[in-house]
């Protein structure tokens, strides 16, 4: 079962009895989900197109219902705190989301500005922002592109910058929503390497994927089907 975890390990995300349907649709896209994700895990989330993977991720990070409305029931806790009681800024500093299309996530004329955008919104001091930018770029191996225009980078490099721009907000959980789907094999390898580095720093990663070969870095793989989640693979299998 998806929620069969070792109790002594810290819970990063706890989802209990999660039901959701969009306002314009009667059928529930998430139909009673119970899942616990441990700190420091890489979770692969798979399922057919339209099965609700992105919706599930949007629920975890508060985009639903704080930005997009719908009928949501159930509890979602991040490190033991119910996200219903958290503001979007608080959630954003705990959960970072990277989307499929790097072009719509990068809106600054150079990489440095892009990485500074999140911490600036959180009112972080300038010196600290500089320190975070340096660390994030080192982590994804893109130090030499600090002053480049994101438009001039390859798809894989853009996605690495999108990851770094989220890392500067120092989230404990990363949600990667099909981030490797538009990237060539070389780019995919770079991203996977960066994700392993991030995991080694104790961060939790939830990666929505269609391509099974990208799931080899996942500790567990969850299948979302008919609005329910089941665990289909663990690291040892």
């Amino acid at each position, binding site marked *: 079962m998806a929620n069969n975890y070792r109790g002594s390990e810290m819970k990063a995300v706890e989802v209990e009895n999660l039901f959701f349907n969009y306002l314009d649709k009667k059928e529930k896209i998430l139909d009673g989900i119970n899942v616990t994700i441990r700190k420091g895990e890489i979770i692969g989330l798979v399922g057919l197109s339209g099965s609700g993977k992105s919706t599930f991720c949007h629920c975890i*990070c508060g*985009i639903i219902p704080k*930005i997009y409305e719908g009928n949501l029931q159930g509890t979602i806790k991040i490190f033991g705190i119910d996200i219903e009681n958290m*503001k*979007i*800024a608080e959630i*954003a*500093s705990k*959960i*970072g*989301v990277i*989307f499929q*299309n790097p*072009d*719509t*996530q990068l*809106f*600054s*004329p*150079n990489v*440095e*500005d892009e990485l*500074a*955008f*999140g*911490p*600036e*919104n*959180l*009112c*972080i*001091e*300038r010196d600290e*922002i*500089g320190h975070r*930018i340096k660390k994030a770029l080192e982590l994804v191996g893109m130090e030499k592109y600090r002053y480049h225009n994101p*438009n001039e980078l390859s798809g894989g490099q853009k996605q690495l910058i999108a990851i770094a*721009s*989220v890392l500067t*907000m120092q989230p404990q959980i990363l949600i990667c929503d099909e981030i490797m789907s538009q990237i060539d094999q070389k780019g995919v390898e770079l991203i996977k390497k960066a994700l392993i580095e991030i995991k080694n720093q104790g961060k939790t990663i939830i990666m929505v994927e269609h391509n099974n070969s990208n799931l080899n870095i996942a500790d567990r793989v969850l299948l979302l089907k008919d609005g329910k989640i089941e665990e289909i693979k663990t690291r040892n299998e």
Partner: protein
Amino acid sequence: MIQELDARTKIIIVLVLSTWAIFFRNIQILLLVLLVSICISIFLKCDLKGVMYKTKKLFKIMIIIALVQSIFTKEGQAIFIINGFPILTYEGLVKTVEFILRVAIIVVSASIVVTSNYREIVQGLVQWKVPYEIAFMVSVAIRFMPIFSQELKDVVTAIQLRGIEIKKIPLGKKIKVYSYLFMPIVSSVIIKTKELSMAMEMKAFGAYPQRTSYMVIQMKKIDYIVISISVLCLLSSIFLYLI
């Protein structure tokens, strides 16, 4: 170096040139202003050729508008008459030339601002106390312009690949074909806007009333000198023109 002027100084220069373009109603003066704009653009290393190429279509439209305006201006000595009806008058011709010169000054002077990257422009505006949301909105519009233009090209190519040669079909059919472009482009823009807003929200955009800024731009001595000269030129020229 004077070529590395602060974005705000460039904005002031553009404002001065644009004010001249709107204020003066004299072809010789407008020509002089255009000449000054071109000199400043070249001095600040603007890609004037690129700007001219990009605004080629705009100028074609402007010339058509100017000619129409000239035809409908009835004042002044008639130059070209059909059946006693003055088609082109001296006054109309003067207005047409003035209009074209004004547009040219505005386009050339706007190219001066483009020599700063839009982050510097946004930061300049923010340091001038323009609300960040407004300044950011402008920068996002600039950032996404090439993406939407590419999108439009892709949709047009997709239609052409289905055997429709847009350039060769009559105007009526062309309008009908263009109406087919509307839906895919609008839906793509909506999807992109949605993705962009989600990415921004998840980076805590607008979470607090204030935000820090990693980039800080500072005016140098040369900026203050250029701004002072620009403002002084503007005020004195207007004063001299009015007396």
